[in-house]
């Protein structure tokens, strides 16, 4: 029988014993958990949710694609899951998506996912060419930056896609990324350091197989419809890469003189990235958060671009860097001191008010000190802002709490009550896969009312709306789980990409393409149930592994005391009484126990997860 959508195999690699084998995907109920985050979470659950540290050899690195991966369109992303060293105060089971070319190569090589456990006794890389999988020595790559590593490997493996870490990952920097090409990264979570802890420098994948489609004529028709609608298939709605997000003079300069051409992930018709070149600094693509240093470089496009290129090469999370910069500015020197930070000068402070904040050289020196310090593991900041602030004491932490609302991740579009609740419930910064608030229901009440949800609380001035917000958050959580598991790109599935009925209903498009590829009839309801199930399983993992409970479902206290978090933030502080009442209603909507936030048996059984309920009960974590 032909396999549609899924390839039916998961590659299992133990770096300690060097044992490599393939296990059937069907062991993990792919039709119920789809792929990506859903499949990874299911695998982690079946492994028994290992209660080990992120850098323990038994901490697995899970990289899955989904049934849609390999098709033309915004479906070519992989999801990296595992115990996230970036999460704070407790390492959590989290996730991070990655685009580029890697996901489709994994699919064409014949795998739905990769599971990497153990630890090699020396630097290695994993080479996957269809069924031919080898663990190769990587001493010659150790210490190289991410670009150099990919170039070196492309000589031996032409046309292959490479996932690699930079020196930051090797040196267990807790905000290290895993990179493919120049700008596609699994950023949040710090999974680069998990690879580093396993002595795994890179994963090289080349596939000559195919994605088989159950109903090609139906899929072709759906693609043609989207194409003719001139929405995402024509590169319509989202194009942040064309104009660096930092805006102003830097964006003008980059766009006018430095943009070489547009770029995007493999197989996607939606060219969201810009490829820029500043001679003497470097070339690379950028899409959104690579603009981080643009906000701090006082108009210097060289400083901005060097920050971007250097962090990508060394393998450091740009989003966290934005948090570090905000925090450095907030704490200033008085509290921490330059010496403890390993910095000679911070241009934004020492040269404030001067043109370009002291010039090119000053930025170069600062970025070199900061980023090499982090990548070498020597700087206090290589542990991430959360742990750095903790070791510097309560005064430094005070500033940290405002900028980093939960689990050690910097504030990211907490702009309405719904997104605040989503943040409080998640295991990391969830926003990279839930723009549905700020790019959907918030500014467009018309979309929200179509789905019967509250909305419009970001239209014409922000409002704090608690009433029925539990439905909005539960909806977006389910949608997020579907997006991360089919998978479909966040940018292509934002509700505002589909403003006009019937195209407005993104759920219809998602369930139609998934049915066409897999040959399984996913009605909107069935797909939604899968989203519900995946989110609930993530919760079950958090309850099982991290003893997640209602008290932890919160933002830091300062968010209830005053307005914090910059421009893209709430209209007013959260109201504690209304917030707790909202949480009660939210747990009821999700079918979880309001007393402790644990999934309850009736809901688990309704979702076909009796086994999960039984396991939780045996562990004393149900009810």
């Amino acid at each position: 029988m032909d396999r549609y959508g899924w390839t039916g195999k998961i590659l299992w690699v133990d770096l300690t014993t060097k044992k490599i084998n393939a296990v059937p995907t069907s062991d993990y109920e792919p039709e119920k958990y789809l792929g990506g985050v859903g499949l990874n979470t299911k695998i982690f659950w079946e492994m028994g949710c290992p209660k080990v540290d992120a850098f323990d050899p038994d901490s697995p690195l899970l990289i899955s694609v989904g049934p849609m991966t390999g098709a033309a369109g915004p479906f070519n992303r992989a999801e990296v899951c595992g115990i996230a060293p970036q999460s704070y105060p407790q390492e959590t089971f989290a996730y991070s998506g990655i685009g580029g070319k890697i996901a489709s190569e994994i699919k064409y090589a014949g795998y739905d996912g990769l599971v990497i456990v153990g630890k090699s006794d020396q630097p290695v890389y994993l080479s996957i060419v269809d069924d031919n999988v080898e663990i190769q020595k990587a001493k010659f790559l150790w210490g190289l930056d991410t670009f150099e590593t990919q170039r070196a490997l492309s000589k031996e493996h032409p046309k292959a896609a490479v996932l690699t870490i930079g020196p930051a990952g090797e040196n267990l920097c807790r905000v290290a990324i895993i990179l493919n090409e120049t700008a596609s990264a699994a950023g949040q979570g710090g999974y680069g350091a998990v690879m580093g802890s396993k002595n795994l420098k890179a994963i090289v994948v080349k596939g000559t197989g195919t994605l088989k489609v159950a109903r090609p004529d139906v899929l072709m028709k759906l693609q043609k419809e989207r194409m003719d609608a001139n929405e995402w298939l024509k590169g319509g709605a989202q194009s942040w890469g064309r104009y660096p997000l930092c805006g102003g003079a830097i964006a003008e300069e980059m766009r006018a003189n430095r943009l070489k051409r547009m770029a995007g992930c493999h197989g996607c018709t939606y060219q969201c990235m810009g490829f820029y070149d500043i001679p003497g600094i470097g070339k690379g693509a950028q899409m959104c958060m690579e603009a981080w240093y643009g906000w701090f470089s006082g108009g210097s496009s060289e400083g901005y671009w060097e920050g971007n290129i250097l962090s990508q090469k060394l393998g450091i999370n740009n989003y966290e860097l934005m948090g570090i910069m905000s925090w450095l500015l907030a704490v200033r020197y008085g509290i921490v001191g330059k010496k403890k930070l390993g910095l000679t000068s911070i241009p934004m402070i020492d040269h404030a008010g001067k043109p370009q904040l002291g010039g090119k050289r000053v930025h170069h020196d600062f970025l070199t000190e900061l980023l090499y310090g982090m990548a070498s593991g020597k700087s206090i900041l290589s542990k991430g802002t959360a742990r750095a602030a903790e070791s510097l004491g309560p005064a430094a932490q005070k500033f940290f709490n405002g900028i980093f609302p939960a689990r050690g991740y910097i504030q990211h579009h907490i702009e309405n009550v719904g997104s605040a609740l989503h943040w409080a419930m998640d295991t990391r910064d969830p926003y990279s896969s839930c723009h549905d608030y700020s790019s959907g229901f918030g500014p467009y009440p018309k979309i929200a009312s179509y789905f019967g949800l509250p909305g419009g609380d970001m239209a014409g001035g922000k409002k704090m709306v608690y009433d029925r917000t539990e439905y909005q958050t539960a909806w977006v959580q389910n949608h997020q789980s579907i997006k991360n598991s089919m998978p479909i790109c966040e940018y292509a599935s934002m509700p505002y990409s589909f403003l006009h009925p019937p195209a407005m209903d993104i759920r219809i498009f998602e369930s139609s393409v998934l049915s066409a590829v897999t040959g399984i009839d996913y009605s909107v309801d069935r797909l939604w149930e899968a989203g519900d199930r995946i989110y609930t399983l993530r919760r079950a993992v958090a309850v099982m592994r991290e003893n997640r409970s209602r008290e932890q479902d919160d933002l830091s206290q300062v968010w209830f005391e005053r307005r914090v978090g910059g421009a893209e933030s709430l209209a007013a502080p959260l109201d504690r009484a209304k917030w707790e009442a909202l949480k009660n209603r939210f747990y009821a909507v999700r079918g979880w126990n309001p007393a402790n936030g644990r999934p309850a048996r009736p809901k688990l059984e309704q979702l076909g997860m009796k086994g999960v309920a039984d396991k939780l009960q045996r562990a004393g974590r149900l009810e």
Partner: protein
Amino acid sequence: MQITRREFVAGAGTVLALGAVSNLTACAPVATKTATQSPPEGVPISTRIVHNPNLCAGCGVCGLMCAFYHEKEYGHSLARNVLSRDPFNADFTFHVCQQCTSPNCYFSCPKKDVALCVDKKTGVKYVNTAECLGCGSCSSACPFTPPRANVHPVKKVSFMCDLCRDRKDGPICVEYCTMHALRKVSGKEKG
């Protein structure tokens, strides 16, 4: 415009030169073998697909939609075109059949006109898969690197770009190229 055999012979020098120039300029890796035989009689010069590397974003949708249209599966191994990518410089090169006026693939086919055929009306080269032996001689004879004809890894028959000759809207790679980097041009037009 169609060029008959008589006109072709009359203006052989210019047309051949034009053909050669356009063939060579359209593809970065140059032809390594030269045509040795006369073109088939009475057929016009085919249209072909050209690539503008300055517009290309390197997404590879051209290859995916090609494989999907012709084989109902996605994967570059089944595409009739090849996109060479240098992601560190954002340089992308597209390789596809150049519809040579004197096609070595056609002359090398042991079942010429039955397996590898030339459309008499349009000049397009195409493979009649029902008759193809899968010997790969067309692929070996192709003057370009990488070769523009290949043997299907499962079906063991040859495949090459036929400009989607049975598709109403023309070549699918051109239609789905969102950057408008691909164009279908007449045989004489430079890429």
